[in-house]
């Protein structure tokens, strides 16, 4: 949200909402009244997980390019125009697939063993609807009938934390953490968490905060929406108190844009020691029905540069061994290009795991692209079940047993795919 170009020096003018941060807030009444000591990290293990969602349906075939697969039919048969020419593909020794050139910032990470590519991921009877497909991925339930999220179900195996251990740094809250005990805030930045006050009467702010806390406390736990809103209000105050104790930290330079900013915020929160370990971030724009070449290249470039900065930041703060990013998209795109240099909603695509804890490499098998091998709807058949991908993260990174992971995955006992150490 930019306010560049706004003249902030105009006398007497209050920038409506631009600089809404309160003056003073808790600090005016001195320490000890609202400030509480830093929360100890909850006993959930030391691993951090950032779930990265590429929203809109990432075109997997142009991301992990099967340039040599089955004699190169990928381009010759299906994508004469938008297919990535083999000369541009960043090749992977020993594989018939390679990277889209825009993923160059991640190539060295792949070479160093920090990037796992899992091919052909989808689920039985997968949906071509954004909404339903997301629900499938968030819940780990191919029928998309479940209302909770796999991350929420995992967190539900532990006691409610005193302070949130997970956060969504997305525009809207999603289903992925539904079912988690306690609050999983949807937030943009800890800097937002200051109690708003009137700049003309800053000494009123602590009193307003007290009143707000009393209104929240008075209705918290009451049945219905009002009780939930009051509960969220209390959690907002809790976040305000805690985030005020978090000093700013030095971070590496990140690319511009809200996606990189969300990754940056995730690192900041991890480093802050308030106990937050699990994050959901998302980048939108992958629904490339037309004009795909430039759009997709820009998106992939953004993802790669942002993840590269993210990793450098983890290294700077010494938490690179403890942090993995898991990257998915709700579906891939049609094998055949359309008449507008784009693709429509399609079938399986790659998922990724990124970080020092990853066993780098290419996993699973690439779906066949031969006309005779396609599904009834004319799309490649999936070769890796999405639940096994999530299950591997649960088992290997989050330390779940197979049966416990199966519980999270609605009864599906996951196969360990081995892409995390």
């Amino acid at each position, binding site marked *: *949200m930019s306010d560049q170009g706004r003249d902030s020096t105009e006398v*007497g*003018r*209050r*920038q*409506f*909402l631009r600089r*809404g941060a309160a003056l003073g807030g808790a600090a005016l*009444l001195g320490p000890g009244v609202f400030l509480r000591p830093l929360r100890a990290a909850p006993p959930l293990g030391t691993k951090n997980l950032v779930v990265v969602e590429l929203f809109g349906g990432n075109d997997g075939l142009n991301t992990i390019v099967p340039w040599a697969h089955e004699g190169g039919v990928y381009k010759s048969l299906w994508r004469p125009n938008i297919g990535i020419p083999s000369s541009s593909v960043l090749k992977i020794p020993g594989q018939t697939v390679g990277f889209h050139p825009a993923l160059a910032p991640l190539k060295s990470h792949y070479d160093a063993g920090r990037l796992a590519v899992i091919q052909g991921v989808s689920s039985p009877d997968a949906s*071509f*609807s*954004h*909404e339903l497909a997301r629900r499938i991925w968030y819940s780990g339930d191919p029928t998309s009938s479940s209302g909770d999220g796999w991350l929420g179900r995992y967190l539900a195996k532990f006691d409610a934390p005193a302070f949130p251990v997970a956060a969504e740094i997305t*525009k*809207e*809250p999603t289903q992925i953490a539904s079912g988690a005990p306690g609050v999983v*805030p*949807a*937030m943009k930045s800890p800097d*937002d*968490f200051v109690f*708003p006050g*009137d*700049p*003309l*009467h800053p*000494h*009123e702010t*602590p*009193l*307003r905060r*007290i*009143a*707000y806390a*009393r*209104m*929240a406390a*008075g*209705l918290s736990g*009451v049945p*219905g*929406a*009002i009780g*939930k*809103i009051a509960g*969220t*209000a209390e*959690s*907002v105050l809790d*976040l305000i108190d805690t985030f005020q104790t978090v000093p700013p930290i030095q971070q590496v330079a990140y690319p511009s844009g809200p996606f990189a900013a969300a990754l940056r915020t995730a690192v900041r929160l991890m480093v802050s020691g308030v106990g937050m370990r699990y994050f959901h971030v998302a980048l*939108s724009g992958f629904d490339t*029905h*037309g004009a795909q070449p430039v759009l997709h290249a820009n998106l992939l470039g953004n993802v790669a540069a942002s993840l590269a900065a993210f990793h450098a930041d983890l290294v700077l703060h010494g938490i690179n061994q403890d942090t993995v990013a898991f990257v998915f998209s709700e579906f891939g795109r049609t094998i055949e290009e*359309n*008449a*507008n240099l*784009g693709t*429509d*909603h399609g079938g399986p695509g790659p998922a990724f795991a990124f970080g020092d804890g990853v066993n780098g490499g290419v996993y699973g098998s690439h779906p066949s692209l031969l006309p005779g091998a396609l599904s009834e*709807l004319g799309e490649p058949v999936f070769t890796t079940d999405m639940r096994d991908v999530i299950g591997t993260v649960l088992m290997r990174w989050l330390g779940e047993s197979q049966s416990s992971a199966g519980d999270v995955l609605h009864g599906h006992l996951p196969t360990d795919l081995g892409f995390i150490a």
Partner: protein
Amino acid sequence: MTIEFTPENAAHLLRRTGFGPRASEVAKWSKLGLNKTVDELLEGGTSGKTKPKKKSIEEIKAWWIRRLVASKNPLADKMALFWHDHFATAFGKVGSVTYMYKHLKKLRGKALLPFNKLLPAILKDSALVIWLDSHENKKGAPNDNLARESMEIFTTGVLNKNGNPNYTEKDVKEAARALTGWSQERGKFLFEAGDHDGSSKKIKGVQGKLDGHDFIQILLDDPATSRHIVWKLFCFFAYEVPLSDPVLDPLVSVWKSEDSSIRAVLGAMFRMDAFYSAEAKADRVKSPAEFMIGALRQLKAKVKSSKKWSDDLAFAMRALGQDLLDPPSVFGWEQGLAWTATDGLLQRVRVAEQIAGSRPEVKGPLSWKAKVLFGKSDTWDEQALDAGAVVQRVLDTLSIPTPSASTRSALVDYMNTAPNGSQATFVLNEESFDTKVRGVVALALASPEYQLS
């Protein structure tokens, strides 16, 4: 069973069919009685003859906000907002301010028309055509975006009330072929015959050389459409129910007998016992539009119309999570408690402070005066309002019918406390208005109670 049109029921109806009713409006309508009120609400069109300057999308957004604040009969505008969420079309992709303005004009002008008139008009709208790539859907190279979303979101929905799919992927592909050539030129619908696939198709069991109009008719004839739209309307105005809930059945019947008349369906809904039940009154969370516009209406805020402030108004709505004319996806906005998740609620507290603190003497997009609450300042001494009375006046002005005891006492104590924490009995004067009353208005706007409709 007749519904008693008490002030409480009137206020409930007005909250749901508008954006923050004022006490005087509640009084006026409740005197009129339920039937006359419902009839008049349904009759009223959208307000204002002014046109926006169409230079930036922020100006269109701010213009719509101002229209909503100024409206005397906002049901049509509330329906326009409902349809905007339903046919969610975003400027971010459409890219043309003019097309988005035309789209908005269509939604506002046709908001209360029968669905069988509204649907074809919107499906031919240039902004929507671009948004769903219809202009790129051509013979031999179909793009199924418009076909898919027409079924999935705009009409039947994915599943019917028995949980069975309303259409198959094959239907989507065939419908896409029927819609080939459905395009636009310079803001007007254009059928490109040369791009149209005129061969035989089969959509949902109907075989023939089907074109876009035939496809629309198939959707309108499908009973799943009436159910799906009636369900969305009920959840929007009354309370959340599953698609199969029998409370919807009489409204679906009205749709059938009145040929998809939205006015008839709403008229029936606003006369149902269920609409005035405890369940209906309890749990609906205000959208950001209702929150912000309601506050501005109730405080009789003056909203400036110059371009300089349009950006601020648009920004506020975006921060609250409802960027008008730029919904996050074709699915529109997530309603209900999603509005008041952590960030959404924090932003409401912030906007509450900004609105409450908007003073005429400080430059900003809006302002409101003490007069709205207390009348002229030379009458304040004789009114002798203490903190409790001031709080009551604020709660009445903001149409908060049943504040909790804890909210009321928190607000009263706030007024009677000095910055150093000591007791300081509140006395109303210009200075305490500026310090304390604006503060209690901010708190009331931020209260859990105010977030509910």
